[in-house]
């Protein structure tokens, strides 16, 4: 028995490396993408719109695949046109700790889906719901709010900021812990 223990232990350690993150390309939503309630007012308690909490908020944020899909879509849908690469332009910076409408995934999802009054367009019906969640997760990674083990690690072109997995947590930046 004894001589087998070490090889078995090593084998099980080595096999663990075969574990690969699942790429869920068709996450099933509890709500259909077209069926969220339309907001009837822009007044929101505490700057937060009570957006339906989907299990996606949690599952997308720690998932490397969804974060990198969000990054690709951020370029594809020209979010950079107004927000630059997160640094801000005509739209506010997304890599700082200031959030006008709240920093939660749900708030960011609501921002992208329904737009915001001072110039953020609504992408309702123009971006499928899952992709909005992917964008929201990526937006949070811009201010260091995603686990560095999952955030995108490499840029294909020159970027003004470090890759997302090396982004400092904007909320604690410059403050002593």
């Amino acid at each position: 028995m004894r001589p087998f223990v070490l090889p078995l232990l090593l084998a099980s350690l080595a096999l663990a490396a075969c574990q690969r993150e699942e790429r869920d390309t068709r996450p099933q939503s509890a709500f259909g993408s077209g069926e969220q309630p339309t907001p009837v007012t822009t007044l929101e308690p505490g700057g937060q719109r009570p957006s339906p909490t989907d299990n996606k908020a949690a599952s997308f944020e720690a998932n490397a695949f969804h974060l990198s899909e969000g990054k690709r879509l951020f370029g594809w849908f020209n979010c950079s046109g107004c927000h630059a690469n997160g640094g801000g332009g005509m739209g506010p910076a997304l890599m700082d700790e200031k959030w006008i409408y709240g920093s939660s995934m749900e708030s960011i999802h609501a921002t992208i889906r329904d737009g915001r009054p001072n110039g953020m367009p609504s992408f309702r019906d123009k971006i499928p719901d899952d992709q909005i969640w992917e964008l929201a997760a990526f937006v949070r990674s811009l201010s260091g709010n995603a686990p560095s083990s999952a955030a995108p690690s490499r840029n294909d072109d020159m970027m003004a900021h470090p890759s997302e997995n090396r982004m400092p947590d904007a909320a604690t930046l410059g403050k002593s812990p």
Partner: protein
Amino acid sequence: MKRLASIAFATAIALFLQGCAGWQSALDPKGPAASELAWLIWFFTGLCAVVWVLVMAALAVPLMMRSRQHAEPLALDAGADSRKLRVVMVAVGLTAVILVGLTLLSFFANRTLAAIGSDAALTIRVTGHQWWWEVRYEDATPSRILTTANEIHIPAGEPVRLLLTSTDVIHSFWVPSLSGKLDLIPGRMNVLDIKADKPGVYRGQCAEFCGAQHANMGTFIIAEPRAKFDAWWNDQLQPAAAPTGDEAKAGENLFLKRPCVMCHKIGGTPAGGTVAPDLTHVASRQTLAAGTLTMSRGNLAAWIADPQGVKPGSHMPVVDLSGDELNAIVAYLEGLK
């Protein structure tokens, strides 16, 4: 019994070699570059086979020869030594000549390949995307510049210059029946000249692993007589056909209102996305999603309803559509000839 075995063997070989024919084979060349390469492949293989047989024989013969008995095993045999030295020298000399010869052959073959497109009149920009090909026909007149996807029409018998690049990762363009392969590298432009001797459809395949759907990244070179090619180009320059019938009209509306418009372009409509295949004349193509499906109403519907089922991981997301909406969009796209 023995005859049966030999018949079976012959059939197996015939079937096996059959795999070398067809629309995607380096051993079934249909253009000057591929012919040059096929000749080179056969010559290298033949010569190396001969060398191999000779070397094996040189090894086997001494094994089978019985060694001569010497009365005095330690005595020097000057004659035998110089004989052995001569054999080794000749073998080394031959090896050097063969290697230099093959190097020269492949050098001159390369020169022939490079000369094919020196007078190319047509330039096509091929951009690799995960996992499809963007094809742009260059022209001095801006209104004649044409963008399409996955299928590359060329005039038969004329050299064509391809400018290869990529927007995401490294891909490789390979149409074995027409030419060797060349990489598409982000931020770099590679030049590949091709020529098809006769009209026909030649299949190509991305030949550099580029991600989940690398295997479903096919392309088609469609070589046509010059007149037919010119007519095709002129047709493709037209804006998309206006939808006929209520269903197709509803389909156009839906296409413009739903996410499709964010990624795809349809010439003549407000849809101007550039990150996905141009759909202005999508129904005139023979396949969908880079050779994954053949073009038909059913396959269009299958693709739009569930691209992630057909080509998991592809960059077209599932868009939530009701049955009626799907039918309308398919009716519209089907008319984009």
